[in-house]
């Protein structure tokens, strides 16, 4: 494989000048050598990892540490703690809405895909929902890695054109007097929804409240379940 970025740009720039036929463009695409490794992803990855370790491009212990962090430490429990704090502490909520990155860091959460955070607040009249139509942008420090549906074509394609229809598929029917705001994470900002605190939770501790905050409620595809209605959803 000798194709360089410069070659790619040369092709791209020529194509922009409309002097290159689509055939040339697709020839470039075929240039991507997808077949040099075994087709089974498990075998391909094994071979790739061995090679990268031998070439000292990756360190196995670092890989293990990353996996452990995202499987066991960094996940929606973090976001739930942020939400619960905002529910019980009005001054914190104010800071969270004004400067989400700093307020989230107060609870110890920061890092990749959360460098610049924005928190948007649901109210009885406003429902926020987050998507990344172009790829899979998601606030890792507070929600962990995104679920498959969030990265999938059905969600990414319809979230912006038919959010209410999509929300119905999640089981959430919003009345017409509620304004739906969809946030498309097209740049380097990452979004967290501050869901409404459900009724019947007045006596609960901050920690108990956090236990009720679901991942989906912080993406904006669900509301937080009401304890009085019984059971975690």
């Amino acid at each position, binding site marked *: 494989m000798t194709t*360089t970025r410069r070659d790619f740009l040369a092709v791209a720039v020529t194509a922009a000048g409309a002097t290159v036929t689509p055939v040339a463009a697709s020839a470039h695409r075929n240039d991507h050598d997808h077949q040099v490794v075994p087709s089974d992803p498990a075998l391909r990855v094994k071979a790739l990892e061995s090679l990268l370790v031998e070439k000292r491009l990756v360190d196995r212990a670092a890989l293990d540490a990353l996996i452990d962090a995202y499987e066991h430490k960094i996940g929606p429990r973090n976001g739930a703690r942020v939400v619960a704090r905002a529910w019980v502490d009005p001054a914190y909520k104010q800071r969270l809405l004004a400067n989400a990155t700093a307020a989230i860091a107060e609870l110890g959460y920061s890092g990749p895909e959360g460098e610049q955070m924005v928190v948007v607040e649901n109210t009885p009249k406003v429902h926020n929902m987050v998507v990344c139509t172009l790829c*899979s942008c998601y606030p890792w420090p507070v929600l962990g890695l995104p679920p498959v549906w969030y990265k999938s074509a059905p969600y990414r394609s319809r979230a912006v054109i038919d959010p209410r229809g999509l929300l119905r598929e999640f089981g959430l029917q919003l009345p017409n007097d509620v304004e739906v705001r969809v946030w498309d994470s097209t740049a380097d900002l990452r979004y967290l929804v501050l869901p409404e605190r459900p009724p019947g939770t007045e006596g609960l501790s901050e920690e108990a409240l956090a236990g009720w905050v679901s991942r989906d409620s912080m993406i904006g595809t669900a509301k937080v379940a009401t304890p009085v209605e019984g059971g975690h959803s």
Partner: protein
Amino acid sequence: MNGIHDMGGMQDMGPLQYEKNEPVFHAEWERRVFAIVTATDAPPPGLRYEAELIPPAEYLRMSYYEKWLTAFVTLMLKGGMITSSELETGKPVTGTRKGKLLTAAEVPALLTKGEPSIRNVPVAPRFETGQRVRARNLNPVTPTRLPRYARGKIGTIERDHGVFDFEDTAAQQLGDNPQHVYSVRFTAGELWGEQVPKQDSVYVDMWENYLEPA
């Protein structure tokens, strides 16, 4: 590039596929792909834009981590970090690379700091909150974060997020071109016509270069 990845507004992608109690990873190889890609500084244009070059039929067929794997291997090959014969044999032939390697001891710091792209440089904003703007009708064949559904549409500056590196040029190594990024509010009616609820809207984060006064 006007590719399959830019799917906002398409209607034929089928129903939502929701998995209850979904695990973080569905297979051991997904764990490894995630970690390898996260630990490695892949050559430009970077994983996102390389994944966008996967042919559409393949892009739609592949699982998320298959796309990561394919794009990552392609980037490493194109960047000269590995060769196809090395991939076939599993044995290094170009010698052991010296230099930056993420160690386990450095992982906690990486997971705390991340890689901020906001820049503390004085750049005057061209637009102010509340101003009407039009998303430019740009159709570059190179990387862009300007979604097709917003091009040519009129919106309102909702918020100025500050100054960020401009991904369109940074990904191509054509300069960081730091500039303001704005949250721009587009009404659902402006984007999709008269049959959608008038009260709804879509907020799109846009680099200043994507916008013009309206």
